[in-house]
């Protein structure tokens, strides 16, 4: 995958070390050029299309923040109609992929997503999750994990950061009983690409939740983006799984973890969790996070025996 073939061209204005950019490059490499992209408002959209330049080498449309799934539904239906009336060849079936951040998916975009999934449109919805409204300056979203500091869930004297749990978006998507749901991490590109290909193969809606760490918002050195995406999986904070028609509504872990690392190793590398270590170590919160991760790993069956 060189510069000239990358479907996301160089020159885009994403931050150095942007996890979302890595995620998109990996998705597009698996999807190929026969792809139409819909993009919700957010970091990805803004940094890749400053008029009159675009980093996209595939057809791409941005409409608004909360409706990527609805726009994708319209495009998918349009192609069905145009094929049916013979305006385009019957075998012209580009992939339709909707890209949205956690903002445009978990929160403001949830309704449109639910509608698209329920109606069964043949669209792959990819959520690149950087766990806050990053483009507008790092405000919390329902994806922001317990204990993380954002500008609207700051670590204050009384409340130490976000005290709510992360919304289980992939499970919500799966509850719509769609053919394919998966979680992926940019640190495991082969796994991610395999999942993209599988999602695009199924007829009907598919959902891919990708953890895309953000050096700017999570506050770590730009070189650590992939490392942190790996640690998230190795500590059990982010579970890699699939939910498919073979096992409806049951997550099957795609990467079991041997000797799962303690969450502290993941937390201590990120400035958004700094308040858990300085000025005084909040072992109580770290323990709570560990407890929750342990509970989740047991539930999903993450640990390799």
């Amino acid at each position: 995958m060189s510069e000239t073939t990358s479907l996301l061209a160089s020159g885009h204005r994403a931050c150095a070390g942007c996890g979302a950019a890595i995620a998109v490059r990996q998705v597009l490499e698996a999807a190929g050029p026969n792809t139409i992209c819909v993009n919700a408002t957010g970091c990805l959209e803004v940094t890749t299309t400053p008029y009159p330049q675009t980093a996209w080498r595939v057809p791409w449309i941005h409409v608004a923040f909360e409706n990527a799934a609805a726009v994708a539904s319209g495009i998918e239906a349009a192609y069905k109609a145009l094929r049916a009336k013979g305006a385009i060849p019957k075998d012209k079936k580009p992939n339709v992929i909707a890209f949205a951040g956690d903002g445009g998916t978990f929160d403001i975009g949830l309704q449109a997503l639910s509608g698209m999934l329920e109606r069964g449109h043949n669209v792959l919805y990819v959520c690149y999750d950087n766990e806050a409204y990053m483009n507008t300056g790092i405000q919390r979203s329902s994806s922001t994990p317990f204990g993380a500091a954002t500008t609207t869930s700051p670590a204050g004297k009384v409340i130490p950061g976000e005290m709510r749990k992360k919304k289980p978006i992939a499970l919500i998507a799966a509850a719509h009983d769609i053919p394919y749901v998966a979680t992926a991490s940019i640190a495991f590109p082969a796994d991610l690409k395999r999942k993209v290909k599988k999602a695009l193969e199924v007829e009907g809606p598919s959902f891919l939740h990708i953890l895309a760490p953000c050096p700017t918002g999570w506050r770590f050195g730009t070189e650590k983006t992939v490392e942190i995406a790996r640690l998230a999986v190795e500590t059990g904070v982010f579970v890699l799984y699939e939910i498919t028609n073979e096992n409806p509504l049951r997550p099957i872990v795609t990467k079991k973890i041997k000797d799962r690392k303690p969450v502290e190793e993941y937390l201590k590398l990120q400035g958004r969790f700094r308040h858990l270590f300085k000025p005084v170590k909040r072992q109580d919160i770290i323990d709570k996070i560990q407890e929750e991760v342990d509970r989740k790993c047991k539930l999903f069956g993450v640990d390799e025996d």
Partner: protein
Amino acid sequence: MKIEPGGAIKEPGSSVAYKTGGWRTFKPVIDAEKCISCWICVGFCPDAAIKKTEKGKPPIIDYDYCKGCGICANECPKNAIEMIFEEK
């Protein structure tokens, strides 16, 4: 330049006109001796600023676009990439 209706951009990948290489403070330098042509760095670059070459050769970094994030250096299994402070 004429503005298309709705601001449609008809030239794909035209962002290459903007050289993000000017952003960096540190620049990656590959030690060809250590490189094993695994291309892991090529896959992880957010900016497609490393190009795959051929087996036995190291990848080529496009310094016009490299933002100096250091992911390539951090991920290289052979520590073949070093981030050097760049004098302007």
